[in-house]
């Protein structure tokens, strides 16, 4: 269609927006469904919001929240440490070390976390006594009854931590491999040891790649820790379960647990966003010295750096 080239054109006005009827219909449909959902949630008496509010800050529920947080923190601590060790082993030149790391990763990433939890919980069936020492030749340092030390909490930490370690190993490995090999060469060429180069040069740079997925893993672990309910650890989900098996208020108590999970993951997501923004800023176009990731680490370089940029080059 030929465009009208006659007469005055009001180019100073904003162009008229294109009508998008399909999008409008979709928006109305979504709004309807959402309104219906909200109405149902509050109108349906079976949700028992009164019960929900009664139990939200119940002493047993709060104890469960606390245990869930503790379990998440300790399992992640185990997971991150194991992951770091495994990743370093995996990158070793020694085939036995890298092989052992690969086997660990395959075994623990390849089996369901639930299976691992139950397995550790029943460790005593496999090894009635647990002996620490050097296999075959060495002295035995100590030996204990497995049932005595593998409590449900220990089993949960072992299960979740070992499982997490396998995932973290891959994350750390990817982070280390993302760092330019020239960085390592520059470090050792200066006479630094391989360990010094790893800790001072490679790992700090690998963190940029490691931290974001680790945030995801923590959020995942928070929810994964609910699996510990099957081996009678009274974390958040079991705490709710213990109440509803007694009162039969199943749905409202599951809502109580869910609200807590959402609140906790919300806090974690927020923290993750803050950290990622700081990580991202050091590579941003406008990045100036002493900003971003480095400022987050060093803090003190900030003012000097900012002053430096402000001046003319």
């Amino acid at each position, binding site marked *: 269609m030929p465009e009208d080239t006659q007469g005055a054109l009001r180019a100073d006005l904003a162009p008229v927006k294109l009508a998008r009827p399909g999008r409008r219909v979709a928006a109305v449909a979504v709004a309807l469904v959402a309104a219906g959902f909200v109405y149902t949630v509050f109108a349906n008496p079976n949700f028992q919001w009164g019960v929900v509010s009664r139990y939200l800050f119940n002493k047993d529920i709060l104890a469960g929240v606390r245990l869930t947080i503790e379990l998440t923190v300790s399992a992640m601590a185990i997971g991150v440490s194991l992951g770091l060790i495994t990743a370093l082993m995996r990158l070793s030149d020694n085939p036995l070390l890298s092989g052992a790391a690969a086997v660990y990763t395959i075994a623990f990433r390849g089996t369901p976390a639930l299976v691992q939890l139950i397995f550790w919980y029943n460790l005593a069936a496999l090894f009635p006594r647990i002996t620490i020492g050097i296999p075959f030749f060495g002295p035995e340092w100590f030996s204990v009854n497995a049932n005595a030390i593998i409590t449900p909490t220990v089993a949960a930490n072992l299960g979740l931590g070992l499982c997490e370690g396998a995932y973290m190993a891959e994350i750390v490995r990817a982070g280390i491999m993302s760092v*330019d090999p*020239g*960085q390592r*060469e*520059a*470090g*050792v*060429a*200066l*006479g*630094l*040891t*391989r360990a*010094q180069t790893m800790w*001072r*040069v490679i790992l*700090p*740079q690998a963190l940029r790649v490691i931290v974001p997925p680790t945030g995801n893993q923590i959020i995942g672990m928070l929810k994964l820790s609910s699996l510990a309910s099957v081996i009678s650890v009274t974390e958040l989900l079991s705490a709710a379960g213990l109440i509803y098996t007694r009162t039969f208020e199943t749905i409202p108590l599951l809502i109580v647990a869910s609200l807590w999970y959402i609140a906790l993951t919300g806090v974690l997501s927020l923290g993750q966003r803050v950290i990622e923004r700081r990580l991202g800023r*050091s*590579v941003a176009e406008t*990045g*100036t*010295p*002493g900003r971003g*990731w*480095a400022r987050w*680490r060093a803090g003190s*370089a900030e003012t*000097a*750096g900012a002053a*430096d940029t402000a001046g003319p080059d």
Partner: protein
Amino acid sequence: MDPMIEVHGLHKRFGSVEVLKGIDLDVAPGQVVCVIGPSGSGKSTLLRCINHLERPDAGYVRVGGRFVGYRRVHDRLHEANERELCKARASIGMVFQRFNLFQNMTVLDNVTLAPRLARKLGVAHAERKALALLGLVGLAGKKDRYPNRLSGGEQQRVAIARALAMEPSVMLFDEATSALDPELVGEVLDVMRTLARDGMTMVVVTHEIGFAREVADEVVFMDRGVVAERGPPAQVLQSPRAARTREFLGRLL
């Protein structure tokens, strides 16, 4: 005079490709040797063998009379442990084509890291020395910058200062200007020229024939893993004897 760098019978292969086929090279203290040659001729590998970034398959390197990466026990060479290797490398400065500044550190930290960790210098001492070196390469004002905020030429000058901070007895330059924009090459060559004038022993792998002609005491032409020709720059660059050298130089002009 004993050579500062002694390369003896160096062989290196990567898989089925023999990159170095028996290289011998002596560099006297204070001498500047420029290594030229087509890409793939083994120049960089030779340089990387000198500080043992590549482990030679046969032959050895001695710097300042000490084996690099090896230890002599009776009539055999034994692999050196990490401490010995680090000590040897600490006295060999290396400058890379891609600068390889530590991206997670400021310019100042880049220069002070190795003296603090490997030479156990105190922070104040290391920083004083670093600032003097940064002044030497004209970058004292940028000490708090991060590498990605510097131009290529500035990064390479910081890299040179970083290597000098270890007070090396020799400096290796691996195509130090090849990754630079043409207008930034000069500032890096100026620093290298100053170093050469001040008596630093240098092995410079380069494509800058002009620099070689002006600064080198000896030019080594490598081709397909062997030293094809060597001699004073006037001879090798102006009236090369080997046909391969003539061909290579002809293609450059």
